[in-house]
Every structure is written in structure tokens, then in C-alpha cells.
């Protein structure tokens, strides 16, 4: 029983971390139907920025995350204005290739700036745990998971309650109509990218104290974040959070009860099963498909 509970705790905590890392991708994928392949590189970039703040100024990576949101947001706007928006005008399908190219450029720049060595931040909580009876709750994961909940709730509020939320809905459902009522899709796109890239600051901070990283680490995270987004369904933040939890728990259960070797295959297997059986994602309802006619 303890073992099961412990497994569930680990799974849920790491699942929250997965969801946190995927938030930016969830936004661009869900709202703009853009698979942003730079997500991994942006996470790693955020982790390096947090690392530099930690090493040079002793700033805790979680605090560091708040400090770098603004520059990361600006970077998002720049990416959108300089590349994504242009490519979208040419051929939407090419955005995946363009962002893939951007990820390569980002990895190159990171390698030039920080070198190839393995890095990690080690704030006081990185290897400590709370104990509840015989159960272990690692502090690092817990804080990352709380960050995930915070970021998800704030973004959800922004999207549901603000001008931006209505603008996003309008621009994605009827760009022409949106323009008529003064919602410029380009401006909406820039905002989404700003928020999306800014939110990777938190994922990057979590990455910096939970894992070690090198410039090449982006490969690991793009695959995983993509799985979270797909399992969660089209860009629903709550769905992605649920998917992250599910993924984390499934992974932990596989590690404990099936085979350690197959644990990394869990996201892959779940994607395959979900996409061939329930392509709209686990947490979205089927809608009337011919409604447009």
C-alpha cells in the first residue's frame, strides 16, 4: 500500500512538472495550430538563464524564473514577428519546419554562450524531501508542481477572462470577422507567443533544479512536451495538466510494477493508443463535425 501511494505521489508530482514544461506548446498548438519545435530549446535556454542567475548572483531559480519572464516574452514576440508570422502567411504547414530550424539555431547559440558542459542548479531544496509517515514528498518536485498549478490557473484566467481570451477565440474561429471588429490576428499571435515563451521560463527553472542539462537536452523535452499536448487534446490547458499527471503516474506505475526498461516508452505508447483510438485527445468531447456546413 505504501509502495502504491509512494508511486502515485512521484507520478503525480513529475506529471505536474511535465505539464508545466508543456504549457507554452499547449498554447501555440491549441490556439494557433502551430507545433512549436523550439519549445525544447526555449526550456533549455530558460534553464541556462536561471543557471547563470544562480551561479553569478545566487538567485534562486524559482525567483529567477520570474525575472526572466519579461525577456523571454519579448523573445517570443520577436520570434513571432520575424519568423512565424511570415512563414504562416506563406504556408501554415511549414511552421513546423521553420521552428525546427529555429531550434537548431537556438541550440547553436546556447552552445556558443554556455559551452557543452553539463549544468544544474542546486538550490537548498534540490535534494530534500518532506516526509509524511513513511511517504516521501521531494521538495523540488513539489515546488515545480505548485508552479505548474499556478501557471496553469493564471493562464487559464488570462485566456478565459481577458480581452485576449475573446480575441483568441475570435481570431481562431473567424479571422476575417475578427478583423472587422478590430481584433488584428497578427497582434493576437504576437501576444500568444509572448505568453507562451514567457511561460517556458517556469518550465526551464524546474528543469534547472530537477534535471541536469546540456545544449542538446532540448531533444528530450520536445518529445515529452509534445506527448503531453497530444494526450491533453487540442490546446486545452486543463487537459494538458490532466495529461501530464496521467503520463507521470503511468510512467511511475510502469517503473514500479511492470519494467523499468519500458518506462520511457509509456508516453510513446499512450500517444499511439490515444491517436489511433481517440484522435481528439483524452480530455475533449467529440463535437458535431459537420456543423460548419
Amino acid at each position, binding site marked *: 500500500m505504501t509502495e502504491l501511494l509512494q508511486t502515485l505521489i512521484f507520478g503525480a508530482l513529475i506529471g505536474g512538472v511535465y505539464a508545466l514544461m508543456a504549457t507554452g506548446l499547449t498554447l501555440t498548438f491549441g490556439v494557433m495550430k502551430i507545433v512549436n519545435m523550439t519549445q525544447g530549446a526555449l526550456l533549455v535556454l530558460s534553464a541556462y538563464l536561471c543557471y547563470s542567475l544562480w551561479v553569478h548572483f545566487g538567485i534562486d531559480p524559482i525567483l529567477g524564473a520570474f525575472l526572466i519572464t519579461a525577456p523571454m516574452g519579448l523573445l517570443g514576440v520577436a520570434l513571432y514577428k520575424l519568423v512565424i508570422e*511570415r512563414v504562416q502567411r506563406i*504556408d501554415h504547414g511549414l511552421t513546423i519546419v*521553420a521552428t525546427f530550424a529555429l531550434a537548431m539555431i537556438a541550440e547553436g547559440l546556447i552552445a556558443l554562450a554556455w559551452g557543452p558542459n553539463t549544468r544544474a542548479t542546486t538550490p537548498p531544496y534540490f535534494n530534500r524531501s518532506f516526509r509524511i509517515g513513511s511517504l516521501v514528498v521531494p521538495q523540488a518536485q513539489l515546488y515545480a508542481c505548485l508552479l505548474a498549478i499556478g501557471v496553469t490557473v493564471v493562464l487559464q484566467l488570462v485566456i478565459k477572462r481577458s480581452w485576449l481570451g475573446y480575441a483568441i477565440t475570435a481570431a481562431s474561429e473567424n479571422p476575417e470577422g475578427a478583423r472587422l471588429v478590430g481584433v488584428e490576428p497578427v497582434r493576437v499571435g504576437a501576444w500568444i507567443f509572448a505568453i507562451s515563451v514567457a511561460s517556458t521560463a517556469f518550465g526551464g527553472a524546474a528543469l534547472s533544479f530537477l534535471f541536469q542539462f546540456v545544449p542538446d537536452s532540448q531533444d528530450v523535452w520536445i518529445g515529452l512536451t509534445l506527448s503531453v499536448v497530444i494526450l491533453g487534446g487540442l490546446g486545452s490547458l486543463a487537459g494538458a495538466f490532466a495529461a501530464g499527471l496521467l503520463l507521470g503516474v503511468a510512467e511511475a506505475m510502469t517503473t514500479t510494477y511492470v519494467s523499468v526498461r*519500458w518506462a520511457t*516508452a509509456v508516453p510513446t505508447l499512450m500517444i*499511439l493508443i490515444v491517436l489511433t483510438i481517440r484522435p481528439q485527445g483524452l480530455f475533449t468531447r467529440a463535437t458535431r*463535425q459537420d456543423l460548419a*456546413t
Partner: protein
Amino acid sequence: MRVTILRRTLVVAALAVLIAYPIVSNDLYYQNLLILTFMLAIGASGWNIMGGYAGYISLGNSVFIGLGAYTTGILAAKHGVSPFLGCLVGGLVCAIAAALLSLVTRRTRGMYFVIVTFAVLQLLALVTTTWSSLTGGSPGLALPLPTWSLDYQNWPFYYPLLGLLVLTVAVSALVRRSKLGLGLFAIQDDEDKATGLGLRTAVYKMIAFVLGGTFIGIAGGIYAYYVTFLNTGAVFDIVASVLMVLAALLGGRGTVWGPVVGAFILEPLANFTSTGIGGANSGAIRLLIFGGLLLAVVLFLPRGVLPTATSLWQRAMARRSRPSPDEGAGPAQRSSASISVSPRGSDVDGGGRVLEVHDVVKTFGGLHAVDGVDLAVERGSITGLIGPNGSGKTTLFNLIDGTVAARSGHIALGGKRIDRSGRATRAHAGLARTYQLPRLFPSLTVIENIVLPERRLSFTRLWRKRVTSPERQRAIAVLESLGLANFADTSPADLSYGQRKLVELAQALWLDPALIMLDEPAAGISPALSQRLADLIRSLHSQGVGILLVEHDLAFLSSLCQHVYVMANGKIIANGSVAEVSADRAVVDAYLGDDVALAPAEVHA
């Protein structure tokens, strides 16, 4: 010089250089570079059959390199089979794997298919590593070294791969020119509609996938022998997959030579960037160069190098002025439009009902979109279906043609139940439809659009020319009667909205349907075209085609229909002649507040 001649000359010259090169030069590095380039070109061309023609973008095509390489490697290392024979077995394994993968496309499309292929790649890599008793596991699998004299350099790798490349491109060109290719492009444009026109799209896709995967698999087998050492990460490699996609995009997706051109740019580039820069930062700089170039291609050459170059060349060579697209948009050559059709089943029995719908129900969530509808169309009659917007008319059409599955109820065509059949089967049984907004295939010409429908699946037919001469003659006749003969070889995008509606009707009639369902054919078109359309419908009626017509224009309707059904809130609330239903109290209530004039005041002559 015309593009074709130029291209042919270039291809022959390039092939001659490639054949001669290893004989006149003993430079192993360039041989090695060309061998890797051939690999990439074969991979990209194979990918292109699925990704470029059918629009199913795979990010997992190195699965085939992996399967081909490991099959060959295991046969060579453990059973002493020559890799040059083993690679053929590898190709076979890949063919089977590709056929299985194509089954996935029954449910997954677009972005989801991309991700499924990515997942399949990862999973197979994991299985290969884990199944170490067969594959050698993580330490890898060593193949025997080549035994031929160094005097032969790498010829035994070079020439088979070059031959395989030529074969791959030849097959790719053949596919592109055939009905198979026509169907694949239609699948890329609008797969649902293609199914409705009787195309067994699953078969098309399976053939495309098998062709695409087999050649890569064979190449993978030869590659295994070339590198002499296999390791899961090296052959089931996402980077190799991505390179194939990039080569095709760079050269020109959906073209025959684009992927080859792309490969001949990318592979040397990858090599020169890694060998041309030295020092500890060379790797980072290489990433910058490669990423930057890729981005530049996307931003400045989005269609790919080859199509861009082709159109530049054509523009430079275009001396004579092109005919304006409006030319020939004139009136029909004959006074009244007609298309000759031999409706299926009409020779079997003359009378009876061609379509019977009984107690059909469809719900979306809690919404009863179609709620227990009974409806019948007499053979050779024109039956109308009217109702306010959102009353379920289009959903009913979708249920009849199989776009969506009914929750319960019976649907029969010519006395045979079709409600459990697929869309293609229903089309083969003689059901055709048009859409409220015409859905022509933009990648095909007008005439290709018309001859696309498939009355039954025939494997020999798939390999015929896109448009055979008899088909062309017949289609031109149809277009002439519609006054559109001059548009035969243009893109449907050049047509007006109304013209597109006419072409879509002609396309549906290519099936020789027993029943055709028309969804608001007269909406939004000019009175002249509307007149031509009415003529056409009457002519179909006279040839014995059953017609089910949704229309808001009651004047248009009452001039054509003997019998009308009225739908509201998913139910049939009345039926009878136009005059009878107009007087019906329930009908008037249903339409209350709508601007539709119920009384057939002005009837078209």
C-alpha cells in the same frame, strides 16, 4: 527551351556523370558522399510518394532504414546471407510494415499522423534495443567486412544504390502520372470527398506507403553493409527522418525530381559544414549555418528549389502571351445543357424506389440532429427536401452517403441496404452528391477533377494514365455542353463559383449514379447558370437518374420537383407537392419568421 527538354537533358547528363564518376575518379570520399546522397534521395523520394502526393507527412521514415538494415544485418551476421540478398528481404519486411502503418491512416490524419509516425519510430527503436537476443541489443550488431579488393573501391555499394535511386524515381514518376497518383493528390486535397467519389482511399494509401517504404528498406540493407555496424540509435534515427522531409521540402514536395534535388543539396551541405569548419566551436557554428539555411529556404523558397526554378525559367521563356482566363467563359455551345448518363441499376428494374430511408436517427451529444426520418425517392424522380437552416438536411445527406454513421435506422439504395457500407461502396452502388459549397480538388485540373470518380476498384486501372484518351473525349464533351471546354486543363481555382458548381455536378455524374443528391445547387449562382443547371437536372431526370434536391429557392424547386419533403428540428414534418406543403400549417409555423417566401409566386419557365 521548354522545361521538359531542359529537364530531360539535365537528367541524362547528371546520370551520365554519376555513372562515369567512380570509374574515372578513385576518390573514396566523394564516392562516400554520393552513396549517402543516394540514400537520402531514395529516402526522400519514397517519403514523397506518401508525404508529397498523398499529403501524409511522416516523421518516422527512418523506421524503414532501421528495419531494412537490421533484417539485412541479422541475416548476414547470424546466417551468413549475403547483404545484397538480405537487403531484398529487408525490403519485404518494410513493405509489410508500411502496409500495417497505412492502416493507422484510417483514423489519423494531418498533424496526428506526423506524431504517430514519430511515436512508431521511437517504439520500434526501443523494441529493437530490448530484443537483444535477436538484434545484439545496445552494444550493436557487427556485420562482416566487405571482402572484395580495394581496387573496386565502393562500387558494389555505389552502383546498386544508384540503380535503386533510378528505380525509385521511375516508380515515383509512374505513380504521379497514373490514376493512382491522381487519387493520391485528391486524397491530399480532400480525402472525405475522394472517398465519396468511390475511391478506395485505403487501398491507394496502402500502395503509396508500401512503395515509399520498400525502396528505403532495400537501401537501408545496403547501407547496413556499407557501415558494417548497426546500432539502434544510428539507424532508427529521427535526424535521418527529418533530413528526408527536409530534402523533399527543399527540392519541391509533390514533384518527381524535387526530393532528389533536395538530397543533392542537403547531404553535401551537411558534409561540408561538418568538415569545413574546425575548432571547438565548430559544432555550434554548424548548427547555426544549417538552421539558418533551412530557415532561409522556408522563408524565401517555400515551394522548394525546383518549382521555383521551373517557374522562373518558364517566365523567362514565355514569349507568347497567355490566353486570359476569362476567355471561353462564354455560353454553352448547345442551347440546353445535358450530360449523358447511364444510371446504375436502371436496366435491372424500371420502377420502384431508388432510395429508401427508414427511421434514421443521429445525435450529437444531446442534440437530435436527425430524429427518426422516413424518406423515399422514386426511381427517376426529382424529390425536394426543404427546411429552415439547421433543420438537419445536410446531416441527412451525410447519413445517406456515409460521411457520418447513423445511430439507428435503415437506408437502402435500389432495394439494397447500404447503411453499414463505407462511403466508397455506396458510391460504387450508384450514389453521388454535390456540396453546398463546391469542393473541387485544387491540385487537379478541371478535366482531372471530372474523370477522378471510380466506379469500382481495379488494380490495372490504377496504373493507367491520369486521363485516358476516351475519358478525355467524353469529359471534353461534357465540358462543352456546360460551356467550359476551354477550362479543361486549368485549375478549378480559375473558375467562378457557379462554374465550379457545374463542374462538381459533372464530376458526380461521372459515377453514372442511380441517385444524385444535390445540396443547394442554385444557391449563389447567376440566373444564366441557374437556368443551365435546371436544364441539366431535367435532362438527368429524363435519363432515369433519381434526384434528391435540397434548395431554399422554392421557385427553382417547384419548377423541377414532383414531390417535396419538409424537415424541421431533425424531423420530417410534411411531404407532398410544393403546393400541398406550402399550405400545411406545421410548415408555415416552422418557417415563421423566416424570409423564405413559401408561395411559388414566380416559377421559372
